[in-house]
């Protein structure tokens, strides 16, 4: 299929996921989730705990088989893990016995890249996320933030069209988080990958996203799709704009409705 638009378009269509349970009816995690993300767009997913945010990301990543509906990437159905999609989990998920560089190289290794190519690419990736000085260090010796940077570098290793981030900085303190979000946007400015980021911080959702998609309590579905009225490149100061508080109020209203 040829597309005039930028690559990395995602269409989530009528997505439902059930998890089997022993001795009970299956757990319906999400039901009828429907949204699209244009190539190069950044969309934040926000919603109450357990509403199925991770399940949506894992479906897009081809790690969960939907019980109904489908996910399209650039018009083609996703039916398993796809190298066009990079994934950063909530935890860094680094191999503890591998150095930072070899963890980043892991993605390339599994994909069958020869060592010389891996070495060049890994250096470049580490530089991008600011880990060039930690290449030979084991994950245990890194701070939580540095580990998450390494996970980000690994997710970028196969030059994906789409980056899926599942509460990537939720374990970091607020200040580190702001800095990481800025760096993420700077990185996006150069790569222009599609980004879907799960967060439970309203301000983070607004700061990162072109749109904020609000999900309802389990079984999760889209209850609001709110455009963020901020220009790019973003700066932290923009968060003080009046438009932001209006957007935040609207998001909160939907989240409260969901909770009530």
């Amino acid at each position, binding site marked *: 299929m040829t597309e005039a638009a930028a690559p990395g378009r995602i269409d989530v269509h009528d997505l439902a996921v059930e998890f089997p349970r022993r001795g009970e009816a299956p757990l319906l995690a999400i039901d009828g989730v429907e949204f699209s993300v244009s190539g190069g767009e950044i969309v934040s997913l926000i919603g109450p705990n357990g509403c199925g945010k991770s399940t949506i990301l894992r479906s897009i*990543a*081809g*790690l969960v088989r939907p019980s109904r509906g489908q996910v399209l990437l650039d018009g083609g159905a996703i039916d*398993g*893990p796809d*190298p066009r999609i990079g*994934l950063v*989990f909530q*935890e860094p*998920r680094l*191999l*503890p*016995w*591998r150095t930072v560089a070899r963890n980043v190289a*892991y*993605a390339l*290794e*599994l*994909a069958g890249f020869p060592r010389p190519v891996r070495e060049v690419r890994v250096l470049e990736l580490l530089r991008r996320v600011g880990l060039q000085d930690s290449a030979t260090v*084991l994950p*245990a010796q890194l701070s939580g933030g540095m580990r998450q940077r390494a996970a980000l570098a690994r997710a970028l290793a196969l030059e994906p069209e789409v980056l899926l981030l599942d509460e990537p900085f939720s374990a970091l303190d607020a200040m580190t988080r702001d800095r990481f979000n800025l760096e993420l946007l700077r990185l996006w400015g150069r790569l222009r990958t599609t980004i879907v980021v799960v967060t439970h911080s309203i301000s983070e959702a607004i700061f990162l996203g072109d749109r904020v998609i609000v999900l309802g309590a389990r079984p999760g579905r889209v209850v609001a799709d709110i455009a963020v009225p901020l220009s790019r490149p973003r700066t932290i100061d923009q968060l003080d704009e009046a438009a932001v508080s209006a957007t935040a109020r609207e998001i909160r209203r939907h989240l409260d409705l969901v909770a009530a």
Partner: protein
Amino acid sequence: MRLSTIPSVLGALAVSLLLWKAVVVIGGYPPFILPPPESVLVRLVEAWTDGVMAPHAATTLLEIGLGFAVGSVAALVVGYVLGRSSFVARLISPYLVAAQATPILALAPVLALWFGPGLLSKVVIAALIVFFPVAVSTMVGIRSVDAGLLELARSLRATRRQVVMTLEIPAALPSIFGGLRIGITLAVVGAIVGEWAGAERGLGVLVNLARGSLFDIPLMFATLVTIAAIGVALYLAVVLVERRLVPAR
């Protein structure tokens, strides 16, 4: 083993020799009950230089080596399957535990009967006794592989083989080596027990000869010292291999 541990090992050795000597002197035991350490040492050197010890030691070492290798390899395979499939684990664990609970001492004569007085019966006995701890530690190690890492590998489209080589084996190695350390010492026990159940040569045979027809109690102790030294040396060899193979984390 670090260089700095050598003095402490030598220290422990010196202390136990002194204790031994003290027990002999204070207790006033005759040499045919507990010979003093120096006469055992003399007999040990003698037995190694006049060629009495070497053929027996070589036989036992071969039995230990083969038994350990066969038992460990089988245990790695079975332990892997047990770790990966809880269905198989439920199915065959009762048999494994029952086999393990049967004392090897009671089993040895039967195995000697079936497999003859030669090398084979000792290898079987040593392999059997090595099997259980290595299989269990392999199973535990494989189960300890982090589910998040397995999902990561799946998201990166790792093949089955890649998952085994890059995740499961490295993650399970510390546990597996725990089992191998126990296994190597048990292999020594297995070989000696096997020899007692019927053999023509080996350190276990020599212990019996020295105590019985030869009535050479210092030789008997010298043989025991040799067995212990082989056990320690093999254990340290496993630890050295572990140092090489198990990466820091």
